[in-house]
């Protein structure tokens, strides 16, 4: 009797401690989630805080007097004259109409540095296309110089103004007031390739490069991965060889990605003599990298198809291949697609293997095919982040936002597909 009571007593006494333990345990969980969310929040706040100005461009709209004497140009159809002509003179003249007091060499140089370095070529291109515009005045919109752009965008922060002289700051303030300098949505970011000038740098080249690379990756890893998974799961005999293959596939999924880069360098570039920096090689390397992920997730999806379906199909006389192609694969497809999309999202964010096959490069032209030089989104972000110009800091963050948008939409697609197509038994 005493024994029993004391046991109940022990339980009662320990009850409090056990509840405490559980509360503590829950608290740890909440704390972990809180820390994860907080770091995510800090990351996003930092990126968006730095990057939102990357989506804004600064333009200067000027009435440019296309004076033939000032440019040393009589005939815009003459190639020799075009190559010797001075196309910054009309831009300086246009700025001087706003600031008549700016005379002399250093003032002219400072005026010329208000617009980006592409401006003279824009004047040239306009005249090459429309020679009849010589000796007229045209209203043209130029991108502002990097320093002007940074100054305008961060007007409230004096540490961004030091690259402009005081005289230039005065000019910029006046032009902003007059509405000559204006900010608008940065369409350049989405319509051009890389540049050494932040204002002219765009992410389109990298987006197209990523797209081409991902197409190659998908075209190779998806059919191969699914074929391998179907064979291993449905047809292969269970023996030492298949065990060995399975262990190796699982191992391969954990191999650091840079190893695949070395492999690509040795095999595709070294042995097959493929060119460096092209989406085909990048895609092949990333395909090798994603293959194990796709095989593993596809096998899991095939395994989850209930045996009753196979048996029913076999029962009404379907051949093994019919069972697999007509019943098992369609039912396993959502799982396979999810795995593939997650694998592709991983590949999209990869830079290390691409370093070795030359896709970390300065490429201005937007790639136009699988064999033209290209870079990819994360590489572009890396290149911008390591540049010293202030304008690239915001571009790098803007690039991260674009990359994150791609990632989120790919993952959302995976979730949607799973929700939409998945069947439960």
């Amino acid at each position: 009797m005493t024994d029993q009571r004391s046991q109940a007593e022990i339980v009662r006494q320990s009850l409090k401690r056990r509840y405490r333990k559980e509360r503590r345990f829950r608290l740890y969980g909440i704390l972990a989630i809180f820390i994860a969310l907080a770091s995510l929040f800090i990351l996003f706040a930092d990126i968006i805080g730095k990057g939102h100005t990357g989506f804004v461009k600064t333009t200067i709209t000027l009435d440019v007097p296309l004076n033939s004497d000032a440019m040393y140009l009589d005939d815009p159809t003459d190639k020799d004259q075009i190559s010797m002509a001075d196309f910054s003179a009309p831009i300086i003249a246009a700025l001087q109409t706003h600031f008549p007091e700016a005379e002399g060499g250093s003032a002219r140089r400072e005026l010329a540095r208000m617009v980006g370095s592409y401006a003279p070529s824009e004047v040239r291109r306009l005249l090459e296309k429309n020679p009849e515009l010589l000796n007229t005045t045209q209203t043209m919109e130029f991108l502002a110089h990097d320093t002007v752009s940074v100054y305008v965008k961060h007007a409230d922060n004096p540490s961004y103004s030091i690259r402009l002289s005081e005289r230039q700051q005065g000019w910029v303030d006046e032009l902003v007031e007059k509405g000559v300098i204006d900010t608008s949505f940065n369409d350049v970011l989405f319509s051009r390739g890389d540049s050494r000038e932040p204002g002219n740098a765009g992410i389109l080249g990298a987006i197209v490069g990523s797209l081409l690379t991902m197409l190659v990756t998908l075209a190779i890893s998806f059919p191969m991965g699914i074929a391998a998974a179907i064979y291993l799961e449905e047809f292969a005999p269970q023996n030492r060889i298949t065990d060995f293959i399975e262990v190796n596939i699982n191992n391969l999924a954990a191999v650091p990605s840079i190893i695949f880069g070395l492999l690509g360098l040795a095999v595709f570039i070294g042995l097959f003599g493929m060119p460096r920096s092209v989406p085909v090689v990048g895609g092949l390397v990333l395909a090798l990298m994603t293959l194990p992920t796709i095989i593993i997730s596809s096998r899991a999806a095939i395994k989850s198809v209930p045996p009753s379906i196979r048996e029913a199909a076999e029962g009404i006389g379907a051949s093994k291949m019919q069972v697999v192609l007509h019943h098992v694969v369609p039912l396993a497809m959502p799982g396979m697609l999810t795995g593939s999309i997650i694998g592709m999202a991983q590949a999209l964010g990869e830079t290390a293997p691409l370093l070795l096959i030359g896709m970390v490069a300065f490429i201005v032209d937007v790639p136009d095919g699988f064999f033209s030089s290209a870079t990819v989104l994360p590489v572009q972000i890396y290149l911008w982040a390591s540049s010293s110009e202030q304008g690239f800091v915001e571009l790098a963050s803007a690039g991260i936002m674009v990359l994150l948008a791609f990632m989120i939409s790919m993952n959302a697609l995976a979730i949607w597909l799973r929700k939409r197509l998945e069947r439960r038994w």
Partner: protein
Amino acid sequence: MIKLKTALTTVALAGSIAAVSTPAMARDTINIVGSSTVYPFATVVAERFGRNTDFPTPKLESTGSGGGLKLFCEGVGTQHPDITNASRRMKISEFENCQANGVKEITEVRIGADGIVMANSSEGEKIDLSLKHVFLALAKDVPNPDGGNELVANPYQNWSEIDSSLPDMEISVMGPPPTSGTRDAFVELAMEGGCKQFEMIAAMEDANEDKFKSVCHSIREDGPFVEAGENDNLIVQRLVQDPETLGIFGYSFLMENRGQIQAATIDGVEPTPESISGDEYPVARSLWFYIKKAHVGVVPGIQEYVAEFTSEGTWGDNGYLVDVGLIPLPREQRMATAKRVKDLEPMTGQEL
């Protein structure tokens, strides 16, 4: 089901076509590899070249001088690069490697120089430093000043402790962060240069290269060296405020701020464009690029790109590369080089 099957076959077919289609195809974009020091200059030239001509913009990879020369010397053919940049001259072993791989005719172009200065406010005292002083002032570990063959944590807090010829002022130096190319060059040229002058450390170079590097390349972290951000203008502002502080930066920056700051002489040499491009100033290096002659005419635009690079408006005294920080060669050298480049005169191997 038919749909799924056709989709799968199409994807597979597209994949195999992409993988199999002949890779040894003609290339119309110039491929350039090489030094990260030359990269900022070469990218600016490449971008202008692409914009102002009908040729595609050359592709540039920053692989480092050694890596670039290795890729460059691997052979002739469009899968190999056409031009490689270098922040040092090609080594004889690299030249031989090139020859062995069939890259016979190479044209060498010296584009200019890159110098690093230590400067303080013009109101402060002008300082005469030697590389040894620089190492003793900034290294993490230095040879024991009391004698003996061991390294001790840097005890120097005042310039006059290092050498009585130096002024009696506290060591305070502002320099670029480790991510900067200027820092790399400073460490390699100035720190290592001073470091090697100690016999015990020089002996280490052969015996234990890693140890040698870590001794020579480590900058002290106990206060006298302050890492400044990439914004050189802020450094100048602080130098002007405090005449006892020295700053480390690229030569072009000294030029822009002449009047506010003055450079210290190193080993008795004043940094000037002449002394830097003439290899007299010790913390300077020449920049080069190498052209593979066999690719000229195969890949379009190589000669035109090189002509753009070696035109007065680019690498001349008022060229746009000066804005990026290049120290131009003297005019006669530029003229001679431009002519050699025009004729694509090959190297003989004797000049190295």
